[in-house]
Structures are given as structure tokens and as C-alpha cells.
């Protein structure tokens, strides 16, 4: 049983999903997905979840406790969390929510610090405050913050990620060549390109895939509401399973749908396990504990 996970009996009390019997550990991931069996015995780390409400549209059950309940149901060990408040309007208040969630579920939720480049004088100190409080990575939202990925106000974040070997996941990375240039300038940072690992993005997406395949510190996050037939397996073929990370973008989307992209993909069982958690675990081990 996962640390911090409810017992099967407790889970049965609050819902009616299949109980973990232990027998499912002998089943393949496809069979477990088709039957809705928990992924016990498989390391699963979601690289991309948010937290809390969003006024733009209703997102049910967005509290940390509700998110962990769904993780329990599926068998997701851990998730990297960055509150929606932090990526929309309130850097410090939002980062505090993420840190509090990680304190409440220390074995399950890993807080990432969000810098808001619209408050440039505060970015460096805020990121350091979050790292000191236990943050395990950094999240950019260049679209919502309206600021370019390679703009100078993000430099303190790049420098910290480089120095502490942190994962840095970004929604928006500029052009493929911009990403390549930044990744080479900060080789100690692990750059994760949000929403690109699901494929199907056409020419710009294809060029980003090449950057991920060629640059040792660039990875792709698979969270995407759009899922064209066969696109994910094509991404894995092009960039290699070692450069792809499972993520869901819950509660903007849902763990339940997004994990199916990996579990039922026509790729090997070993590749699925790398994407589901082994790749990110390797990156996280290089950063602060």
C-alpha cells in the first residue's frame, strides 16, 4: 500500500471501485486499465496537477484531499502540484496553497513553486522561499502570465533550477530553437514541456519533439485534453520513452482519462512504466529532498 494511502477497506467504504486484492499485480497494465483495477506495485507520479478552484470554469473536487482520493482510486503514488491561484493571479498566496497541500499529504503531493514574471522584483526571493519550504520543482505558465519563456524575468528561476537540478515544467516554451537555447544554457535543469507529449500538434509540435529527442535535459509532459488516434505512440517512437512523462493537468482535466493514454497505448510494458513514474523519479532524486 502506498504511504498515506487509505486502506482498501476505507476505500471500499467511500466508493464501490474494485478492491485491491494483490492479484492484479500479476496483470498487465492494459488488463488493469480495462477492468479499472488499481495500479498497485507500479510507480506512478503525475508530473502536472493543479489545485483549488478556477473562476474561468467549474472544476469539481479541486481540494488536495479530493485529488488524493482520486489518486488512491487509480493507484497514483505521487503528483507534482502547482495551485491554479499561483498560475493565474496570486504568486505568493498560490504557492502557499501548494506548500500547504504538500505538508498535508507529504508522501503524495510534491509542491512546485510558480514564479510570476509580472512581479519581477519578487521572483527570486519567492522561489527561494518555496524551495526552503520544501518545493521540489518549478512551474511556468507563460500563457496566463503573458510573458515569454526566455524573458529575463525568468532568469532567477532558470538559475535555481540549474543549480539545484530541479524539474522545471513550462506551459509555453517559445519556439523550438528558443527551448533548445535555454536548455543548453542551463544544463543542470530538467525542462519539461507541458502538453506536448500527447502529439498531434502539427509542425511546431514535431519540431519540439526533435528538441526533446536531441537535448538530454528536455522532456515532454503528456497532459492534453485532445488525443488524436495513434499520436501518443508516435511521440514515444520519435523521442523515446525515456523523455516522456505522464501528467494529467487535473482538475483542469482528470487523472482518469489522462492515464489511459499511457496504460492502453500500443507500446511496451517497460515503456509504460518509465513514462508513468520511473523517468520523473530519476529526475526528482537529483534535486532537493
Amino acid at each position, binding site marked *: 500500500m502506498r504511504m498515506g494511502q487509505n486502506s482498501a477497506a476505507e476505500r471500499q467504504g467511500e466508493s*464501490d471501485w474494485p478492491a485491491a486484492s494483490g492479484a492484479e499485480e500479476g496483470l498487465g497494465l492494459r488488463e488493469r486499465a480495462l477492468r479499472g483495477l488499481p495500479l498497485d506495485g507500479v510507480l506512478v507520479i503525475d508530473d502536472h496537477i493543479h489545485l483549488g478552484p478556477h473562476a474561468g470554469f*467549474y472544476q*469539481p473536487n479541486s481540494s488536495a484531499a479530493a*485529488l488524493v482520493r482520486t489518486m488512491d482510486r*487509480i493507484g497514483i503514488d505521487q503528483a507534482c502540484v502547482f495551485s491554479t491561484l499561483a498560475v493565474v493571479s496570486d504568486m505568493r498566496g498560490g504557492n502557499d496553497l501548494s506548500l500547504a497541500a504538500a505538508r498535508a499529504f507529504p508522501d503524495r503531493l510534491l509542491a512546485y513553486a510558480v514564479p510570476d514574471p509580472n512581479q519581477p522584483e519578487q521572483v527570486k526571493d519567492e522561489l527561494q522561499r518555496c524551495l526552503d519550504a520544501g518545493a521540489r520543482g518549478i512551474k511556468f505558465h507563460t500563457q496566463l502570465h503573458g510573458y515569454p519563456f526566455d524573458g529575463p524575468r525568468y532568469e532567477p528561476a532558470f538559475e535555481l533550477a540549474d543549480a539545484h537540478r530541479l524539474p522545471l515544467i513550462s506551459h509555453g516554451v517559445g519556439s523550438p530553437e528558443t527551448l533548445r537555447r535555454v536548455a543548453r544554457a542551463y544544463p543542470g535543469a530538467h525542462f519539461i514541456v507541458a502538453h506536448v507529449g500527447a502529439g498531434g500538434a502539427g509542425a511546431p509540435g514535431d519540431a519540439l519533439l526533435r528538441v526533446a529527442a536531441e537535448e538530454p535535459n528536455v522532456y515532454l509532459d503528456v497532459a492534453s485534453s485532445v488525443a488524436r*488516434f*495513434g499520436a501518443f505512440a508516435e511521440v514515444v517512437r520519435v523521442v523515446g520513452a525515456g523523455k516522456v512523462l505522464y501528467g494529467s493537468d*487535473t482538475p483542469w482535466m482528470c487523472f482518469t482519462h489522462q492515464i*489511459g493514454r499511457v496504460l492502453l497505448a500500443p507500446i511496451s510494458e517497460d515503456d509504460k512504466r518509465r513514462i508513468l513514474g520511473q523517468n520523473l523519479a530519476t529526475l526528482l532524486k537529483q534535486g532537493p529532498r
Partner: protein
Amino acid sequence: MNSSPSESQLFDANVVVGPLPRRPPGAPESVPALLETMDRYGLATALVTHASAKWHDPALGNERLIRELSGQDRLIPCWVVLPASCGEVPPEAEQVQDLIASGARAARLCPVAHRLSLEPFEVDRLLGALEERRVPLLLDCDNVHWSEPRPWRFIAWACTTFPALPIILLREGQASFRALFALLDQYTNLVVETSYLQGHDAINLIVQRWGPSRLVFGTGLPLWDPALPITGLTYAGLSPVQREAVGGGTLRRLLEGCRR
């Protein structure tokens, strides 16, 4: 890799067969390829529209659908329907009679692909004819992303005006719950297909609030990856009875409601 169809009760409400614009590489086009894909994903049965009916000519495409699906029982035909104002299809009542006589058990309306206004003067006779025979109507707005708009006023009007007509929204996303939930509260004939319903715990929430008769499982094959809606259902935390209903029971009941 394949699972026996008998192991699965999943009934896919949203499938297209035939030559498709911008078909993803490797996506099934023919009936045998579709059945093979369904086996791979544990899909037992599907409600199927022909791509030629949607993208080329509804009358010819519907004929082709019936011909290509003949002789097997896992694929249930769903016709594409149009208003008869231009004479390209028979008058509405005759069109619906032909649909039922052909063995089809549902209709798909494609307002974006067919540039329909959805104004009452255009579609009221068609929806009335479908309601009279209780033929479920799939509303296919060709939506790709959750940020796209929906014809909510039309949906509310259609649900109000034709209360005995089951209206199934295809590929409804997670960003319109404020409108969708209001409609689910007010119209019991409104049903949502699950392929794109990705709000956190949304399937569970909708089932707990309105019951499993308001959701039907669908994938959007062959354009979309069936994996996401499958685990969206299997990991939704539903009881076996609820899961069976969303996975197929609700759709079977709606199709059986057709007046032959």
C-alpha cells in the same frame, strides 16, 4: 493483446467508419479494421455512422453504411440526417421512416459540417419526426477543444420543444458545466456522451447527481484515441451497476425505444 468481445460490455456511442478527412495515420477505416481496433480496446459494440454520409452525401453514405454493416451484429447503424428543405433528402417523416426500416436506430445531426443554422424554421420538422419515432439524436458539433462554443440556446429549445426526443451531446468537454448542469437539471431527455468529459471526477459527479441514465460511453473513433474515455469510465469510481449503465445499458435502452 486482444480481449474477447464477450468479456466487455462497453457499447461505444460515437464511432465513424469509412474514408475520413484528415484521418490519423493507422486509424481504422474499413469495417474489419474497426472491429479489430474495437477488440484491441475491449469494445463490444458500437453505434456507427458512415463518414461518407457526414462528409460527402448523407443519402448515399447512409446506404453505404447499411451495406457495409450488413451481416454482423456488433455495429449498429446511425444515419446522418438533414432538413429536407433543399430536396437532397426525402421529407423528414419519410427520412425517419427509411432510417428505421434500414435497421438504423439513431440519427446524427452535424450542424458544423453541414452549415445548419439550427433555427427552428430549419430543423423543427426533422426533430419532430425523430421525436415521433423516438429515434435518439446525436448532436455532432465537430468540436475539437473545450474552449469552443456550443449551441446552448438550440439545445435548450430542442429539449423543451421535443421532450420525448433523447438528445445526446457528443464530445462535450469540461469547460461548460455551468450551462450543461443547468440543462441536465431542467431536461431529462438530455444525455451526454463521455469521450471528452474530462473534468475532475465529472463522470462520478454527474452519475451521483442525475443518475447513470444521463451518460453514455463513447470514444470518437477513429479520429480520437479510445484509451482516454475507456479509463475515464473504468476508473470513475462507479458501482458495477452504474458502470454497466454508462458503459452500454443506457444507450441500449435508448435505441430500444425506437418506434418501428
